[in-house]
């Protein structure tokens, strides 16, 4: 199958070669015995190019030699000349192959394609290869011709130019025709509008070319202006693809040759046949080269433009993506050059450093940031991360404190800075990570752990110590003293209660922080009365006087019942506990609606809160009355946390009527009718 196909290809090219040869032989200049144009050179070039350096080349070599001999022999050349011209055709095709497969391998071999001719350099290489191959083959062709005719040496030049022109014109066109043949029906790429515009221009090119040719070669007989037709080649080359430009050249060349042979046009006035042949061939070669060079150059420029546009689009897309990433980052990123100019800054950087008025000048003014060391000492200019990075230093996770008018509370930043390589002027990137909350949490956790350890180890020390003392008492030889033993036991029990209370409060503290809030309408009156009954009962059990707790009509609230009960219990518990000795606790619980909130108040007759501590009583482990009253310092911080998690607030103030305290807190109100 492959053999048949290959033989078919060889037969097709042989036929085309014969036809081209016969066509060429019709243009033989009588005095020289050589044809004016030789399209067969182009056909042979395409033929051998598609075969390449394969074993089939041997077959094609033989077929080409026979075909060339036959066409020359059949058109009147004597046997010696015909054989010499056949050898010349063979040498020319092979020499072209040697040169092209070395210079532009994509133009030679089974993979050869007209699409490979898209670079200006390929046109130059094709021209050079065609000229050299024609020159080499001239040793056989013209040398033989000279030996049998009386023509002068111009024939040598005519031969080279003629054959080179034939290759330059037909080689690209032939490859493109093969491309078209192989890809016919696959993908119509041009849009209809563009196709119509190209067709209109192509029609205009054909009409204007035909008219110019007619005016220059048929009508005009006196003025030697054949160069006007070169303008048509420029048009074809600069506006159309190489296939169209090459086709235009072929048609133009055919017209010029035909008219000249009929004694028309400026070239027909050249009396000497060899001179005429040289001029016509040079003219056609130049026209072909001009059209092809311009067309390929245009193709190359278009491809470059497409590539550049693609690169630009990709760069724009990449820049937009990087910008979007930077804009969405929680960490601040700033790039600054050595002149102090801000090259890039993301929103997080502005937010972390403060949106300062001076910043809008887009210049870094170190003092405006209020940059401090973590211990509060000012940062010198040379110590700035930016300045150090611009000096080539790499800073990793250094802590700085920022305080300025737009960040009045200050912010602890972890800063990394790196010099950016290959930037002019030298630039550096600085990354800011806000660690304020993280460090505060860490410090709070350490402090919390410390206080818990202290508050648990103290009663543990008491338990261990007094237990040992009790054991000593019991093992002493003297009779035991019951009062002393009771004293020791009382200390042990008290310490155990302290530990139990602390553990309970720690659990409540954790619950207040972590319990998921599912707010539901809560009947506040019922809840407070229930907790109050429990407090009264507990006092009676201890043998004390029950507190007087008055509960008004309290609006329903929207809250998590478990946590709300904790709030009420802690506040009533404090009011019951912190009273002067001998005083019966009296607590008045009132509430009123304030738009969507309920303001709940606990007024007591206790010992009150020392001046200056009304806000601090809500701090974790803070105890306003450490002496004489047991406590863990967690009760009110639990209350505050729960209230705030419900979106409310709590304050403490003096109760002027009794000298006690008023606790005022807000909670979300339930809708009317709920609870």
């Amino acid at each position, binding site marked *: 199958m492959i053999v048949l196909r290959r033989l078919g290809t060889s037969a097709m090219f042989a036929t085309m070669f014969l036809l081209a040869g016969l066509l060429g032989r019709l243009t033989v200049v009588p005095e020289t015995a050589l044809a004016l144009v030789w399209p067969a050179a182009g056909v042979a070039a395409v033929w051998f190019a598609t075969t390449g350096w394969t074993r089939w080349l041997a077959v094609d070599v033989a077929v080409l030699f026979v075909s060339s001999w036959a066409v020359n022999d059949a058109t009147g050349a004597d046997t010696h000349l015909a054989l010499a011209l056949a050898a010349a055709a063979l040498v020319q095709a092979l020499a072209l192959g040697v040169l092209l497969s070395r210079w532009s391998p994509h133009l030679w071999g089974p993979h050869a394609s007209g699409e490979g001719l898209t670079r200006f350099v390929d046109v130059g290489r094709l021209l050079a290869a065609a000229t050299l191959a024609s020159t080499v083959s001239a040793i056989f062709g013209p040398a033989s011709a000279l030996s049998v005719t009386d023509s002068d040496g111009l024939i040598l030049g005519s031969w080279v130019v003629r054959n080179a022109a034939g290759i330059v014109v037909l080689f690209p066109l032939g490859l493109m025709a093969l491309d078209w043949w192989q890809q016919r029906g696959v993908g119509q790429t041009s849009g209809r509008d563009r196709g119509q515009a190209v067709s209109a221009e192509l029609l205009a090119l054909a009409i204007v070319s035909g008219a110019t040719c007619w005016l220059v070669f048929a009508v005009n007989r006196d003025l030697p202006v054949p160069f006007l037709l070169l303008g048509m080649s420029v048009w074809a080359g600069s506006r159309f693809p190489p296939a169209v430009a090459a086709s235009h050249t072929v048609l133009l060349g055919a017209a010029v040759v035909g008219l000249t042979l009929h004694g028309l046009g400026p070239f027909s006035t050249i009396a000497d046949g060899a001179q005429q042949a040289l001029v016509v061939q040079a003219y056609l070669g130049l026209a072909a080269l001009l059209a092809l060079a311009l067309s390929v150059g245009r193709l190359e420029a278009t491809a470059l433009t497409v590539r550049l546009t693609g690169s630009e689009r990709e760069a724009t897309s990449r820049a937009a993506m990087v910008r979007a990433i930077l804009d969405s980052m929680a960490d601040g990123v700033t790039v600054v050059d050595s002149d102090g100019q801000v090259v890039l800054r993301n929103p997080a950087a502005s937010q972390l450093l403060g949106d300062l008025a001076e910043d809008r000048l887009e210049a870094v003014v170190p003092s405006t940031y209020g940059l401090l060391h973590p211990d509060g000492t000012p940062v010198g200019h040379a110590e700035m991360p930016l300045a150090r990075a611009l000096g080539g230093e790499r800073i990793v996770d250094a802590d700085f404190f920022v305080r300025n008018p737009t960040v009045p509370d200050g912010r602890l930043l972890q800063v990394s800075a790196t010099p950016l390589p290959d930037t002019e002027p030298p630039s550096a990137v600085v990354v800011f990570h806000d660690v304020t909350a993280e460090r505060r949490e860490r410090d709070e956790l*350490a402090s919390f*752990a*410390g206080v818990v*350890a*202290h508050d648990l*180890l*103290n*009663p*543990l*020390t*008491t338990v*261990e*110590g*007094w237990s*040992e*003392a009790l054991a000593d008492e019991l093992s002493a030889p003297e009779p035991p003293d019951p009062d002393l033993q009771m004293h020791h036991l009382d*200390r042990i029990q*008290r*310490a155990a209660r302290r530990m139990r209370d602390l553990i309970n409060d720690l659990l409540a503290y954790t619950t207040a922080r972590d319990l998921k809030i599912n707010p539901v309408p809560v009947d506040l009156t019922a809840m407070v009365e229930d907790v109050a009954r429990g407090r009264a009962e507990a006092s009676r059990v201890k043998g004390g006087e029950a507190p007087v707790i008055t509960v008004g009509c309290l609006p329903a609230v929207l809250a998590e019942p478990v946590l709300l009960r904790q709030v009420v219990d802690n506040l009533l518990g404090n009011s019951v506990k912190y009273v002067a000795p001998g005083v019966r606790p009296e607590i008045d619980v009132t509430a009123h609606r304030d738009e969507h909130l309920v303001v709940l108040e606990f007024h007591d007759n206790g010992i009150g809160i020392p001046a200056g501590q009304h806000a601090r009583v809500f701090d974790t482990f803070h105890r306003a009355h*450490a*002496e004489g009253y047991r406590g863990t310092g967690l009760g009110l911080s639990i209350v505050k946390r729960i209230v705030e998690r419900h979106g409310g607030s709590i304050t403490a103030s003096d109760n002027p009527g009794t000298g006690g305290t008023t606790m005022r807190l807000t909670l979300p109100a339930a809708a009317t009718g709920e609870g």
Partner: protein
Amino acid sequence: MARVMVVEDDTDVGDWIAYCLRQDDHEIEAVASSEEALASLGNATSPPDLVVLDYALPGIDGVDLLERLRGTDPDLPALFVTVQWTGKTLQRIDATGAERLAKPFEPRDLREAVRRALAGRRSPG
């Protein structure tokens, strides 16, 4: 026998320290705050032989209190009984040159620490 001032805001702990040391025949004065300690020293005719104090005292902490007490008696021996939870606390305590004892502790540990603290007092002159 020595005169020992015990400064501990947790009276259950302070009382037990006093109880232990009294059994060794030391003369004990127990107070519950730094302010009381300073007031007591101001009223005393002579400084104690040893001060046993908590670090985490409310208001003036143990180290600051010791510095003030040593304003009167620069060589005053001291023993800190404390919960050692941070390096910073330990550094401050060790900078005073005082002995320290971690809670909770056994009576014999307390006695040994008191003995070491009293032995470390430099001779007058």
